[in-house]
């Protein structure tokens, strides 16, 4: 089985998708925006906002950043710590 891209969902986004983690099969390198496009096709995914804070492997990332198999992509709702 080829290595997949792990997508983590938090807080309200996890509620919208009904899941805290989804695995996307990765056919070659992809970008953060391509990952987001695929997540939007999942049940509940259409309710995600147009733009989201994202992280790849624990670091904040932009939509054009590349994502490789084995990477962990996180979709972060607006932060509310502090």
């Amino acid at each position, binding site marked *: 089985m080829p290595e997949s891209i792990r997508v*983590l969902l938090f807080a309200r986004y996890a509620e919208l998708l009904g899941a805290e983690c989804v695995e996307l099969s990765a056919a070659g390198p992809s970008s953060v925006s391509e990952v987001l496009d695929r997540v939007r096709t999942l049940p509940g995914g259409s309710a995600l906002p147009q733009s989201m804070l994202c992280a790849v492997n624990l670091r904040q990332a932009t939509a054009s950043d590349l994502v490789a198999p084995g990477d962990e992509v996180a979709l972060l709702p607006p932060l509310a710590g*502090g």
Partner: protein
Amino acid sequence: MSYLTGEPIDLTALASRVESAERGGVVTFVGHVRNHHGGRGVRRLEYSAYAPMAEAECQAIVREAELRWPVTVELRHRTGRLDVGDVAVAIAVAGNHRGEAFDACRWIIDEVKRRVPIWKREYYTDGSVAWVDPTAAGGTVPAAEPAEGPGAR
């Protein structure tokens, strides 16, 4: 080193960890759970986090502060269920000069709010539940899930 904690935060203990013979001036900031938000009464709340990233961001903030100013820093952020009045976040900064300790402490709390992936789910006295969202009108977005089962307090 863990910056997130599920246990109550002891301010005096945190402050004593930064104080030293060289750095006798200690500035702290503590954020408590308030009993109201956006016109609704708050009953309790829950903090969740993307824990490994939140730990990494907290560590980066502490290191950046200690590089930028001659200070020693401690930082703790609660996770899990909190009641009104509980300490949500605490920062302690010891400096050779108090102005630097004030500057660093203020910068750190701003950075924690800006960079650390933590989310707050508020339970209101009217039974409603919402996610705190500083970018939303009113500061919250309704939670999708049912509030609480009949067994919840």
